[in-house]
């Protein structure tokens, strides 16, 4: 067990070092930040001053070391475009993305598990068939088209919900939340659905498949023969055993929710880190891109690690196998 954990942590650190190298290479080889910041009308003195200010005149190795040192402290220098510290901008934008990701993740989980159980139990019913068909179409639709479709329906045609922005936000310490105002909550609905829909269909199909498999097992048949009520069988006996793969997939999907937030945030002009990243690409704002890459890789690697550990903790069968040294 311990050896397994150490190996996984080692792998995670390797991944982080690799992405760190990519992030640093971006700084050293991509574009000329001076060009991006000063534009056409500039003097040689301006160029020299800025070069020293950004530390671009120092040798490669020194810059690399400085980069690692600074990155660990969450310091990625000044944004080429906004001229402010990148860390500050990211922190300012993070609450918007985290709130959006949280709500759509919750939606995907609750909706996905609920619908998955429903379609598994009522396998033959027409409602289950309709849900399955709709989900198939939902998977094929690109995220941004779903967003546009929702905007068209609920903002343009019906006029019920706002099509962009976060609505009114309340500042609590350094955290700006949209949960406390009516307009903030209303603004959250469409982006959350757009972002959560794909993961929801994914979880739903997974739960359904697993449920159907488990319901065919002998112990379920025995439980039924013992006269245990159907509800208890479905929820206490069957559902429990479907949860292991669901937790894994959900955990891994958490990472892609953050990534796909880029698309949703652009469609809804949601002021989060995803929109920041897209703008950074458009304007070749390297520090922001590098910081986003580092942030998201720490998040992904962390999530993967936690999911692996959870997997281990939840399923006793895995533990027996591994500690017995069979594999």
């Amino acid at each position: 067990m311990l050896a397994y954990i150490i190996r996984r942590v080692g792998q995670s650190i390797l991944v982080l070092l690799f992405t760190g190298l990519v992030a640093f290479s971006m700084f050293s080889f991509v574009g000329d930040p001076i060009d991006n910041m000063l534009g056409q009308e500039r003097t040689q003195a301006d160029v020299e001053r800025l070069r020293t200010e950004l530390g671009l005149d120092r040798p490669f190795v020194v810059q690399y070391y400085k980069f690692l040192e600074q990155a660990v402290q969450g310091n990625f220098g000044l944004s080429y475009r906004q001229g402010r510290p990148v860390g500050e901008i990211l922190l300012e934008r993070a609450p918007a993305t985290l709130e959006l990701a949280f709500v759509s993740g919750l939606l995907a989980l609750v909706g996905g598990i609920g619908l998955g159980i429903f379609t598994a139990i009522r396998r033959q019913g027409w409602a289950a068939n309709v849900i399955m068909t709709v989900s198939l179409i939902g998977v094929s639709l690109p995220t941004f088209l779903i967003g546009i479709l929702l905007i068209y329906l609920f903002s343009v045609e019906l006029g019920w919900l706002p099509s962009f922005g976060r609505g009114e936000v309340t500042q609590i310490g350094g955290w700006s939340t949209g949960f406390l105002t009516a307009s903030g909550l209303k603004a959250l609905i469409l982006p959350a659905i757009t972002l959560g829909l794909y993961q929801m269909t994914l979880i739903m199909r997974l739960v359904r498949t697993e449920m159907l498999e488990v319901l065919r097992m002998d112990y379920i048949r025995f439980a039924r023969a013992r006269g245990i009520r159907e509800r208890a069988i479905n929820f206490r006996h069957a559902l429990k055993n479907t949860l292991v793969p669901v937790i894994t997939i959900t955990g891994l999907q958490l990472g892609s929710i953050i990534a796909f937030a880029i698309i949703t945030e652009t469609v809804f002009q949601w002021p989060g880190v995803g929109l920041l990243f897209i703008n950074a690409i458009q304007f070749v704002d390297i520090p922001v891109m590098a910081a986003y890459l580092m942030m998201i890789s720490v998040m992904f690697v962390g999530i993967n690690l936690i999911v692996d550990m959870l997997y281990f903790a939840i399923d006793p069968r895995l533990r027996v196998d591994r500690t017995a040294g069979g594999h």
Partner: protein
Amino acid sequence: MAETDMPSDAPIRPPSRIKRAWESDLAWSFRHTPVAMISAFVVTLLVLAALLAPLIAPHNPFDPATLNLMNGFTPPGEANAFTGDSFLMGTDDQGRDVFSTILYGMRISLFVGFSAVLLALVIGVVLGLLAGYLGGWTETIIMRVADVQLTFPAILVAMLIFGIAKGITPPEYRDQMAIWVLILAIGLSDWVQFARVVRGATLVEKSREYVQAARLIGRSPFSIMIRHILPNVLNPVLVIATISLALAIIAEATLSFLGVGAPPTKPSLGTLIRIGQEFMFSGEWWILFFPALTLLALALSINLLGDWLRDALNPKLR
């Protein structure tokens, strides 16, 4: 008896290639799956329309001389109030025929999609073969890189590569290079699938007798990989390529929609949707609707075709 003697007198001509193809399992399955036939029809239609765009398109949307600003915002099928011209799918703000822009846009979408998948396929197959056949350090390095890349969603990797490549190209060439940068970004973000499958299949084939025989008669590892193993691992590659094509077209559309793909001067379907979105609020729905519908039809039918191919080529399901 006379019948069985026949072959020795007059050698039977082997059935022609076309006949053999027609009678193969794959073709049989195709003829008995309506979804596959319909999807194939839609894909063929759209690809032909894209290829023949200069012949079919009523206007050249990129030739300013043929544009008339007075034609702007003509609804589909209606005659313009000023010029009396009418357009199948209406016009955009600059009086460009939406139908023509879709035809030309689809060319770019399909070109980027096909090229990106081809790039991913070549990289993936080569690395997969090397990893599977050579093993050792080669395998460790290739598969580690694949693992790291797989930690991140492909679309994110593509965005990053696009961003970096954009940074490297000088600003004055960025619009011209955008299409190639897109192909590079999507292709590089998608090779892992191919590499993993090819490596797995190569590991299986490596221990077969025919490979050992080839090795014994002194064929070089390179020739064994290309001439002997490659043809036997191509089936799954074909399936992945088809599904990847749908994903690549969607990825291209997504990137272009986000404004980090094909530039407005060379719009793909995604760029057209991005442009059309601006007019959704003022009621000019057709500028958005038709490109979106085309993208959907294209991606969905390629996807369904891929699904069918996967089932048809999977011996376990027969």
